[in-house]
C-alpha cells in the first residue's frame, strides 16, 4: 500500500471517526443517559447541557494535553536523567550545558537573534506597510514581499545559499564584491560573528512580509480623520508617521514583535541547512537538534531552556488575552 493511499484512508477514517464520535456521543447523552422525557426531563436536559461542552472539547483537550502540555513536564522530567535515561542525575544536564562553550555560544547567538530579527523584521514591515499603502500597485508589491512567508525555511535557506555562494559566478553577493574590486570571493558564512547576521537576514527576509501584512491592516485601521487633523495642524509626512500613526498602532507592533521573537526561539532549520551550526553559528534550537537521537538528557534540557526563555512572552500573551475577554 502506498503511503499516499494510506493517507487517503487515514483522512476518511479520521473524518468519519471525528464526525462519528461527536454525533454518537451527543446522541448518547441526549437519548440514553439523560433522555429529555419522563419525570426527570427538565433535570436531564440541564445535565446533558452540562456534559455537552466537554464532549465537544474532549478530543481537542486530549490532543493539546498529550502533545503540548504533557511534554513540558515530560521533557523536564527526562532532562533530569542521564544520556541513556537510566540514572537520575538531578540538574546534571543543565550543569553540563553551562560548562559547554558551544552551548554558551548558542545562548549568545540566540540573544543576538532575539534582539536583531524581531526588531529588523518589524521595522522593515512597518516601513513597507506605510510605503505600499499609498501606491496604486501597492497590493502587488505587498504580495511579492509577503511571498517568502509561503516558502519553507529549508527552501529559503537554499535560495540564500545561492546569494551567499563562495563564487563570484554563482553568488550575487560575491559578484557585487568583485564588481567593487575584491579579487577573491569569500564565504560569508565562515566569517565568524558576522555570519550570524547573514543567517538572520534569511529570517528577516521571510518575516518582514508577516509584519507588513499585520501592520498594514493596523495602519489602515487608524481613523483617517486623525491624520487629516494632523495635516491641518501642519505636521509633515514624517511627523504624521512617527507622532500620529506609530503611537496609535503600538499595541499591534508589540504583538508582531513578540510573535517573531517566539519564532526566533524555535527555528532551527536555517542554521541547520546553512552551516549545520559550524563556524560559531549555533543557536539553541539547532544545538538541541545536534543532541537529538544522541543524548536525550541534554536535548530535553536544552528544550527546557528554550521553554524558560519563551515563558515571559507566554505569560504576557495570556494576560493580554484575558484582558481582551473581559
Amino acid at each position: 500500500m502506498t503511503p499516499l493511499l494510506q493517507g487517503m484512508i487515514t483522512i476518511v477514517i479520521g473524518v468519519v471517526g471525528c464526525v462519528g464520535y461527536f454525533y454518537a456521543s451527543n446522541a448518547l447523552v441526549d437519548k440514553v443517559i439523560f433522555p429529555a422525557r419522563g419525570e426527570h426531563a427538565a433535570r436531564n436536559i440541564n445535565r446533558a447541557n452540562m456534559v455537552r461542552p466537554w464532549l465537544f472539547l474532549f478530543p481537542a483537550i486530549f490532543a493539546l494535553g498529550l502533545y503540548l502540555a504533557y511534554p513540558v513536564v515530560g521533557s523536564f522530567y527526562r532532562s533530569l536523567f542521564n544520556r541513556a535515561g537510566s540514572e537520575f542525575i538531578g540538574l546534571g544536564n543543565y550543569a553540563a550545558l553551562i560548562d559547554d562553550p558551544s552551548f554558551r555560544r548558542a545562548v549568545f547567538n540566540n540573544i543576538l537573534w532575539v534582539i536583531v530579527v524581531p526588531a529588523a523584521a518589524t521595522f522593515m514591515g512597518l516601513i513597507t506597510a506605510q510605503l505600499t499603502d499609498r501606491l496604486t500597485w501597492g497590493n502587488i508589491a505587498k504580495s511579492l514581499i509577503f511571498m517568502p512567508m509561503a516558502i519553507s525555511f529549508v527552501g529559503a535557506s537554499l535560495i540564500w545559499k545561492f546569494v551567499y555562494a563562495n563564487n563570484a559566478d554563482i553568488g550575487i553577493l560575491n559578484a557585487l564584491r568583485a564588481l567593487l574590486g575584491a579579487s577573491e570571493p569569500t564565504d560569508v558564512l565562515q566569517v565568524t560573528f558576522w555570519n550570524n547576521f547573514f543567517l538572520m537576514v534569511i529570517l528577516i527576509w521571510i518575516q518582514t512580509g508577516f509584519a507588513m501584512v499585520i501592520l498594514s491592516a493596523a495602519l489602515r485601521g487608524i481613523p483617517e480623520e486623525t491624520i487629516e487633523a494632523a495635516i491641518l495642524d501642519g505636521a509633515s509626512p514624517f511627523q504624521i508617521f512617527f507622532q500620529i500613526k506609530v503611537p496609535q498602532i503600538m499595541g499591534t507592533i508589540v504583538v508582531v514583535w513578540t510573535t517573531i521573537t517566539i519564532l526566533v526561539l524555535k527555528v532551527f532549520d536555517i542554521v541547520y541547512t546553512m552551516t549545520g551550526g559550524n563556524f560559531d553559528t549555533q543557536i539553541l534550537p539547532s544545538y538541541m537538534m545536534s543532541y537529538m537521537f544522541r543524548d536525550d538528557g541534554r536535548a530535553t534540557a536544552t528544550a527546557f531552556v528554550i521553554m524558560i526563555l519563551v515563558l515571559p512572552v507566554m505569560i504576557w500573551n495570556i494576560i493580554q488575552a484575558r484582558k481582551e475577554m473581559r
Partner: protein
Amino acid sequence: MSDNIVGEKAGLMWAVQISVVALVILWLIPTVGLLVSSFRDRDQISASGWWSAPFPVEETFRARASGDPVQENGVFVIAGSVFADPENTARFPDGQGEVAAFGTRGIEPGAYPAGEVVEIDDGETLVVNSDGTFRFTSVEEPGGRGQRIYFEALTPPEFTLGNYRTVLTADNMDRAFINTLTVAIPSTVIPILIAAFAAYALAWMQFPGRGLLIAAVVGLLVVPLQLALVPLLNLHNQIGIGQSFLGIWLAHTGFGMPLAVYLLRNYMVGLPRDIIESAKVDGATDFEVFVKIVLPLSFPALASFAIFQFLWTWNDLLVAKVFLPSNSEAQVMTVKIADDLLGSRGGDWGILATAAFVSISVPLAVFFLLQRYLVRGLLAGSVK
C-alpha cells in the same frame, strides 16, 4: 483619499515609488536567482552568474589539431575548425561560433587572442581565428593524437528542463514529493474538525472553567515544539507507532491544535449572537446549531487555518526529521534537500535549485491563489 490633499509634494511620492520598487526587487532577487538557475545547465551555472543568463556566456572548450598533415613549403600543416571537432559538435551543431581567445595549456585556456600566430615550441606554430578555423604547423611530422587546443568561445544562452527531468525522475525526489503530500493532507484535514467543535464550545457554550481553557490555549500557542520531541517519540515507540506516517499525522494534529482552536474561536465568537440565539429559540440543539449554522458561517476561518496548517506541514523539517524514519522511503522534500542533496550534491547547483523550486512550488501556488484567506487568518490569529 490622501493623494487628494493639496500641497503634497510630488517629489515625495516619487521617492516612495522608487523605494518600493527597490524593496520589491531586493526581496525578489534571491528567489528569481533560484528560479533562473533551475533552468540552466550545470556548466553554465558555474561559468556565469544567473543574472547574466540571458546573455551569451564565454565558456572554455577543447579541441585537437588532428587530421592528416599536408606538407607545404617544407612544413607540415594541419588545418580545420575547432567547432568541427567531435568533442564540440554537440554544443556547436552547425559548426559555427566565435572564438575569443585560445591557448595550448589547460591552465591558460585563453592565453592568446584569436588570430595571433603563436610559436609553441621547437618549430611548431598555432593560430586559431575568430571564426574557429585553426592552422597548426610543424617542422617535423606531427605524431601522437595531435596538438591540444583550448579556446574560449561565446555560447548562446541556454535554458533546459534537464534539471527538472533529473530531479523529478531520478534521485527519489518524486518519492519525497509524494511523501510530503502524504504528510501534509491528513495533517491538515483532521485537526480542523476536532478544533472546530472545541472552538464552538469555547465560543458559545457556558460552562465552568471556560476562561481557564481559553487562557491555556493561548499559552500553549507558544510552547516550543522542541519540548515535545523526546517525550513523544519515546511514547510513540512504547505504544508501537514508532517513527511512521501515523505518528507524524498525530504529532501535527497535536501541534496544530492550539492555533486551530484559537483562530476558530476568535472567528466564531464574532458571529452575530442573534443568529445563534434565534436558532436555539427555534429548537435547535447545540449540535445542530454547530453543524448547520456555525460551521458553514465559519468557512473563511476554516479556510485560513487549513492554508496555515498545510503550509506549515508541507514546509516542516523538524517534526519530519524526528517522527518519520530517516530512510529514503519516507523522506519528505525538506529532509531530502537538507540532509541528502546538500550533502551529496553540494556542488550541483542546478539540481539543488531545481529541487528547492519543486519543493516551494506547491506552497507558492497555494499562496498566490489563496492569499486572501491567508491574510485574513493572520489578522485573526495575532493576539490583539
